[in-house]
């Protein structure tokens, strides 16, 4: 199956963007497997996981959810049909900046949690927590850098690709937050 060359520039991503959706679903599969592993381990180490959650900063993570949603809004503004290039560039830069804010808040959050990582009283919670959220954090950091790059080279196909991926990173966090912090 080939990507349609005749694909209208202004169309939202659809089933014709074969490689894009392969990438999207590979990300969702990877994170889905990690989240399932987290939950399964949580069944067998329920006490340890409950104790470990007491050391997480859920309000800060909720703030980070708002930060990522705001970034997603700006990314959607950049990908709007008919958006002038100047506005597209500005929205991409703002989206990237909020992405970096997310990274900064997350690193600050980690500084308060890293001390518990080696404590056996919390089972495998913190290993899985840092793996899961750290993997996501790297995606956000990389995505924010690509948003900045694309703001410099605003071909619409590039904008569509990176903003679609950016929203996927947002979706992953939206689902991950209650499972890791609250469940």
């Amino acid at each position, binding site marked *: 199956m080939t990507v349609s060359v005749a694909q209208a520039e202004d169309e*939202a*991503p659809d089933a014709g963007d074969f490689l894009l959706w392969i990438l999207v679903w590979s990300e969702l599969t990877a994170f889905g497997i990690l989240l399932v592993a987290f939950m399964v381990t949580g069944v067998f180490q329920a006490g340890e996981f409950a104790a470990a959650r007491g050391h997480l900063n859920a309000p800060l993570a909720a703030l980070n959810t708002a930060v990522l*949603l*705001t970034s*997603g809004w700006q990314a*959607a503004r950049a990908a709007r049909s008919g958006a002038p290039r100047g506005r597209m560039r500005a929205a991409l830069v703002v989206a990237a900046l909020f992405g970096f804010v997310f990274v900064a808040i997350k690193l600050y959050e980690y500084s308060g949690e890293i001390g518990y990582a080696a404590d056996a009283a919390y089972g495998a919670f913190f290993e899985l927590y840092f793996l899961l959220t750290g993997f996501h954090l790297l995606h956000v950091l990389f995505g924010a850098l690509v948003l900045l790059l694309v703001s410099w080279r605003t071909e619409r196909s590039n904008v569509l690709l990176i903003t679609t991926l950016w929203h996927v990173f947002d*979706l992953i966090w*939206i689902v991950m937050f209650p*499972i890791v912090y609250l*469940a």
Partner: protein
Amino acid sequence: MIDRTERQLLRRWITLIAITGTSVAAVRFAGGMAGLALVLCLATLKTRFVVLDFMGLRHNRTMARALVGWGVVLAVSAALKDVIIAFASG
């Protein structure tokens, strides 16, 4: 590209922030299984809004359902996990 107006996107962002605030309140004041169920439902709702409006997939229902379905499967699994733990602990 996304076929939403600036105003529509702004309204959707406000809705998403409001839902996030409601989730925080639900955990704080409801708690337990009911609070978790509410939070997971709200997370699914947020997923739906991001998929339909921010990703512009209103015209591609199959992909939209698949993406939201991904979130639903995980949310249901999280709820099931807590039910199992509750039963196991008696």
